[in-house]
């Protein structure tokens, strides 16, 4: 089973902080709880508990270029780690959130997908800790999509799953 090294996790959090510089102080505390994630040794022992099958599904997305037999971008280990960290952050925000369906994207990302009745939301996580692509569909074919920073993407998923 893939593990996350504490040092890498911390680095991810630092990257995340850097990407939300414009978030107001009032919004920060819940995100800052990431600092409470602890570690023992080199293995992942965060306070969030991601099921083994979800971790495995995320890392199973790792693919070489052209994996779709056409022109797909590679899905790198970094993309998988990036998706795992996104999910960890999400679980800190909302520990009881439903686990997503996980898939590899031909665009070189890992996609996490949720459905609630007739509502759908997916976020496409790229390897760099930059913007996340989201796409949603509500009843009456109301569709939305675009890029946003991780913090806003996390809030979007949390709000969707409430």
């Amino acid at each position, binding site marked *: 089973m893939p593990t996350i090294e504490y040092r890498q996790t911390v680095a991810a959090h630092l990257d995340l902080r850097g990407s939300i510089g414009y978030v107001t102080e009032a919004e920060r505390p819940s995100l800052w709880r990431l600092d409470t994630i602890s570690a023992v040794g080199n293995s992942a022992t965060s306070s969030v508990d991601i099921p083994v099958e979800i971790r495995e599904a995320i890392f*199973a997305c790792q693919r070489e270029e052209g*994996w779709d*037999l*056409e022109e797909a971008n590679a899905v790198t280990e970094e993309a998988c780690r990036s998706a795992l960290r996104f999910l960890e952050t999400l679980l800190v925000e909302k520990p009881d959130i439903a686990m997503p369906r996980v898939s590899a994207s*031909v*665009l070189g990302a890992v996609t996490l*997908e949720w459905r609630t009745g007739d509502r*759908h939301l997916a976020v496409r996580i790229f390897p760099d800790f930059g913007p996340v692509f989201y796409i949603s569909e509500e009843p009456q*074919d109301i569709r939305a999509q675009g890029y946003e920073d991780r913090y806003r993407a996390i809030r979007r998923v949390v709000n969707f799953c409430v």
Partner: protein
Amino acid sequence: MPQKIDPRDFLYRKVNPTQWDAFGAKIEAFVDKYDDLSFRLASIVSPMQVMDFFASSPAAKKQYGENVTGKDLYDAGFRLAILPAHVITDAGFAFKLEKDDSEYNPANGHVNIIDGKNAPFTWQKNARILTEEEMQKGVLQLPDL
């Protein structure tokens, strides 16, 4: 004479490994690198012909060997999703026209949905994954077109 797609027809789409599970196709199954979304028309090609087409690609030979077959791709985790053709127009999307204004390529059944990657959830909820038996038998009781 330009060929039109009968709304009672069906469309096949290749689904890559990780993009399907026991519940069906995931949304990434309906996203391409380009804006238009590629399908094959079920009245023109069989499921295994679609798989064999991809098996003949250089990428398939490179990854799975020179003699790779459509069945090998199935065993490697590739699948086909099937979608009623009318779903496309019902959702307000259109087929990209060929040079002769046909809605599909009569030679290989290839169909492109203009900007189809913008509605993956719509395709997903109207699609299902073909079973292994359906793949081999060619399955579908297509209506008389």
